[in-house]
């Protein structure tokens, strides 16, 4: 199977104007992924599926991932004059990264039996509504999985034939798998309250009863 870079090059040709980039994965299994922008996702995916050399006709897994607004700190080698001597000093550089939601597709080929090509779609921000292109018209296995990502992460898939909640009940309002989801306060007295249960206990029980 060809490397991800070659696939990227051929995909860029097949879907003109698509911003494609490789997302490095530095775990030993080295499954790098292909980031594609939301507008051209359908065209790139169609190319990946119909290209005679790739024939990725089986979309095994669709996952939603939530990245909060984070503050990346990387160690950067900076030349600085320290007490008169020119020296290499490591400095921690803080970069702000806006949060975003992601839909990750693992594509395999049953015809040619070769390994995963991972396709990623990122939403611009985290504020609702976040929109991503649905790939259900290409692979029907995405139907339920995209509904689940919508149900638990709130990512809207346009082009999805039947986008409803799949796991939670329909009247449920918020998206429970997001990192900033607050659970309903379901308090049940614990004989030995400790750390956050203690805070909850303080809110529920009169002062006298709660003695840590």
């Amino acid at each position, binding site marked *: 199977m060809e490397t991800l870079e070659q696939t990227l090059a051929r995909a860029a040709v097949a879907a003109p104007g698509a911003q494609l980039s490789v997302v490095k994965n530095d775990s030993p299994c080295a499954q790098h992924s292909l980031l594609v922008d939301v507008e051209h996702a359908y065209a790139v995916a169609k190319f990946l599926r119909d290209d005679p050399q790739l024939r990725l006709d089986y979309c095994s897994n669709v996952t939603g991932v939530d990245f909060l607004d984070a503050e990346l700190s990387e160690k950067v080698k900076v030349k600085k004059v320290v007490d008169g001597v020119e020296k290499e000093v490591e400095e921690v550089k803080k970069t702000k990264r806006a949060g975003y939601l992601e839909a990750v597709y693992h594509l395999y080929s049953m015809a040619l039996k070769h390994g995963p090509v991972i396709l990623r779609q990122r939403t611009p921000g985290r504020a609702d509504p976040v929109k991503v292109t649905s790939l259900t018209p290409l692979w029907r296995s995405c139907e339920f999985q995209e509904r689940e990502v919508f149900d638990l992460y709130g990512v809207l898939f346009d082009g999805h034939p039947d986008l409803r909640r799949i796991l939670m009940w329909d009247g449920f309002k918020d998206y*429970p798998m997001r990192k900033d989801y607050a659970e309903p306060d*379901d308090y*049940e*007295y614990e004989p030995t309250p400790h750390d956050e249960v203690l805070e909850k206990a303080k809110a529920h029980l009169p002062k006298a009863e709660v003695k840590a």
Partner: protein
Amino acid sequence: MDDGLRNELSKQGVVVVKLEELYNWGRKNSVWPLSFGLACCAIEMMAASMARYDLARFGAEVFRPSPRQADLMIVAGTVTKKMAPQVVRLYNQMPEPKYVIAMGACAISGGPFKQGYNVLKGIDRYIPVDVHIPGCPPRPEALIHAFMTLQRKIDAQKLTGPDRARHLNADLPSEFPVPLFGEHDLVPSKNPNVWRPAVVVR
């Protein structure tokens, strides 16, 4: 009629028994469970009713699919918030006298999935539970032990008097309100007159 005379008579083959004992003896040996498997505990419930652990010895191998013909509900598995209204409605649709066995840690208190946002922390928030079996999943022998506990409980039920059995007591409710689906949680999140948590007074 003291016990000595009763033993004497039973040796001669004459059995003397109170109406209450006869009534309870008849009911306890034909408890029909409602086939109501939710999760992994349901597989252990099925294994208990199969050839090796044989629930039929206790007269309970007839698993009735419909609540109309069942008088015992074994809540076997995790009760999620989406499933809770159905569990309470099924309980309401069962004819009196009815009993509930909360099988497995999930049915008792949410079990290993207690921190789940969609998991009801125990079925005794909405319906009264007669027998709790801990375990995840409890072994078939534990389920049979629960049946024996339930049979002892049925045996000790009174026919008349203030603390008579619930189904003979007109003013004890046999129906409990079904929770509704709210925007973030079930509304009401628990049934106060059924759910009495153990309050530890320091």
